C-alpha cells in the first residue's frame, strides 16, 4: 500500500488509503466477511445436498451408521463449541470497549475450547478407525448393507473432516489476533480483525450446530444402541 495517500481528515495509522473513514472500512470488512461466509455456506451446502439425497434413498443404512456414533462425545463437542462462541463474542465485546487484557484472555479461552474440540474429534476418529469404519482404505462391516453404511461414513468423514480443517484454520486465526491484541494493536476505534475472525469462528460453530443432529441423532435408536 503506497503511503503517499492524499491527506484525509482523520488520518489514523490503521486507515487504508482508499477508504474515506474508519467507519467505511469496518463496514466494508464486515460485509466482505459475510460474502465470504456465504461462499462457505454453499461449500458445505454441496455436502449437505449429497447427505440429504442419500438419506432420502437409504434411510435404514443411515440409521445403522448413526448408531455407531457416540452421541455423548457429539453432545460434549457441541457444548464445547457453544462455549467457545460465547468467549469469542465476549472477546469482540471487550475489543469494542478497548480492554486489552480482556481481549487476550477471552481469545486464549476460545483457543483452548477450539483445541478441546479438535481433541475430542481426534478421539472419535481414532475410535472409528480402530473399528474399521473408514470406507475404502480401512473398512469392515458385518451386516448386509455394508455398501450403504459405507456411503454414510464417507459423508461423516468428509463433512466432519472439512469442518475440523476449518476449525484448525480458525484456531490459527484466533491465535494470530490474540498475539496482535497482546501487542495492543486493537482499541475501541479499530478492532476490525477481531470482529472479522469472530464472524468466521461463529460460522464454523453454526456448521457444527447442523452437523451434530444430522450425523449423531438420526433416529431414536442411537440411545438404545
Amino acid at each position, binding site marked *: 500500500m503506497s503511503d503517499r495517500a492524499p491527506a484525509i481528515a482523520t488520518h489514523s495509522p490503521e486507515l487504508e488509503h482508499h477508504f474515506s473513514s474508519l467507519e467505511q472500512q469496518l463496514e466494508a470488512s464486515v460485509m466482505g466477511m459475510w460474502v465470504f461466509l456465504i461462499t462457505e455456506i454453499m461449500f458445505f451446502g454441496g455436502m449437505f445436498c449429497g447427505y440429504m439425497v442419500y438419506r432420502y*434413498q437409504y434411510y435404514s*443404512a443411515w440409521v445403522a451408521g448413526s448408531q455407531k456414533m457416540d452421541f455423548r462425545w457429539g453432545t460434549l463437542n457441541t457444548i464445547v463449541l457453544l462455549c467457545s462462541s460465547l468467549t469469542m463474542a465476549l472477546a469482540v465485546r471487550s475489543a469494542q470497549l478497548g480492554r486489552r487484557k480482556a481481549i487476550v484472555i477471552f481469545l486464549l479461552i476460545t483457543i483452548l475450547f477450539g483445541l478441546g474440540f479438535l481433541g475430542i474429534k481426534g478421539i472419535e476418529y481414532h475410535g472409528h478407525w480402530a473399528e474399521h469404519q473408514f470406507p475404502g482404505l480401512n473398512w469392515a462391516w458385518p*451386516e*448386509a448393507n455394508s*455398501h450403504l453404511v459405507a456411503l454414510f461414513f464417507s459423508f461423516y468423514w468428509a463433512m466432519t473432516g472439512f469442518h475440523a480443517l476449518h476449525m484448525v484454520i480458525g484456531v490459527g486465526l484466533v491465535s494470530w489476533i490474540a498475539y496482535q491484541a497482546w501487542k495492543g494493536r486493537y482499541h475501541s476505534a479499530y478492532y476490525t480483525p477481531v470482529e472479522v475472525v469472530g464472524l468466521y469462528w461463529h460460522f464454523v460453530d453454526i456448521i457444527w450446530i447442523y452437523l451434530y443432529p444430522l450425523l449423531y441423532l438420526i433416529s431414536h435408536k442411537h440411545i438404545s444402541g
Partner: protein
Amino acid sequence: MFDLPLWPPRASTTAGSVDALFIFLLTLCGFMALAIFTMIIVFAIRYRRRPGHQAEQIEGSNALEFTWTFIPLGIFLCIFVWGAYIYFQERTPPRGAAEVYTVAKQWMWKFQHVEGHREINELHVPVGRDVRMIMTSQDVIHSFYVPAFRIKQDVLPGRYTVAWFHATKAGTYHLFCAEYCGTMHSGMIGDVVVMEPAQYEAWLSGGAALGSLANTGQGIFQSLGCSTCHRFDTQGRGPNLVGVFGRPVLLEDGRTVIADENYIRESILIPAAKVVSGFKPIMPTFQGIVSEEQLNALVAYVKSLNPPPAGAAGTPNLKPPTSQPETNR
C-alpha cells in the same frame, strides 16, 4: 460428387414429431434472427454518423419493454409444452412392447433378446413393433443413441434406464454411444437393423436360440440357490416372487414402491436397501457374483412368473400393437 446429407433419416414415430417441432423452431427463430439482423443493418446505414445528422435521444418506452418480455415468454411456454409432450411420450414406453435387455460395457453394446438371442453391436428389430430397451452399464456412463429414431438415453451403471422406439422404415441405421466413456468412445458404435416382420421371423428362428431369456434366468435362479428362500409353494424365508412384478410392495420402513426392474435389480445387488415388510434383511448381496447378463436373465425370469393373462410383457405376443402408451414403469 461427395456425400453431403443435410437431414438425418426418419425411421421412427418419434422422429416425425421431433422433426415437426424442430422445423417449427427453425422457421420461428430464423425469422426472428433475420428480423434482428436486418434491423441492425438498416439502422447502421440509415443512422450512420455524417455531418449535420444528430442522434435523437430516446429514454425508452415501458410499453415496448413489456411487449418484448411477455410475447416471447408466451411463445416460449408454447414451445415448452410441445417439447414436454414429445418428451412425455418418449419416456413412457407402451405396455406390451417387445423387450430387449442391453448391457453397455467399455466400448461395446451387448443385446439380449427375450427369445434368447444375443447380439453384439447389432440389434435386429421388426418394423412396426414397439421395442423397449432395458439398459444398464457394467462400468461407466454410456448413452444409447439412434439418430434415425431421434432417441437417446444415458445408460447408467448400477441402475436400469429405459428407452423405447417404434420403427417405421426398414433399413440399417447408426447406433452411437453419445456419452464420453473413455478411449474408444468413438468406436462404441453399431447398427440397428430394422427388418420386415417376415424377415425378422426368419432371422429369429435361424439364430441358434439357447432357450428364452426367462429360461436362462430360471437356471441361474436354481444354481444360485435363490429358490431355497424364495419358494413358490409355501412362505419361505424370502418373499414369494410370483405376481410380484409391476405391483406395489410394502417395505419394512413403511414406504411402498412399485416392483419394477430397478427394484428387482437393487434387491439382488443391495438387498438391505428395500426390505419387504415382515421379512428380515438376511439376504446376502450378489454384487460381484452375478454378471450383468445373468442379472438381466433373472429379472426376465421374475417377470415371467407373473400369470400370463395379466398382459405380462415377458413373452412376446405377436398381436398388432394397438395398446395405448400408459406408464407402467
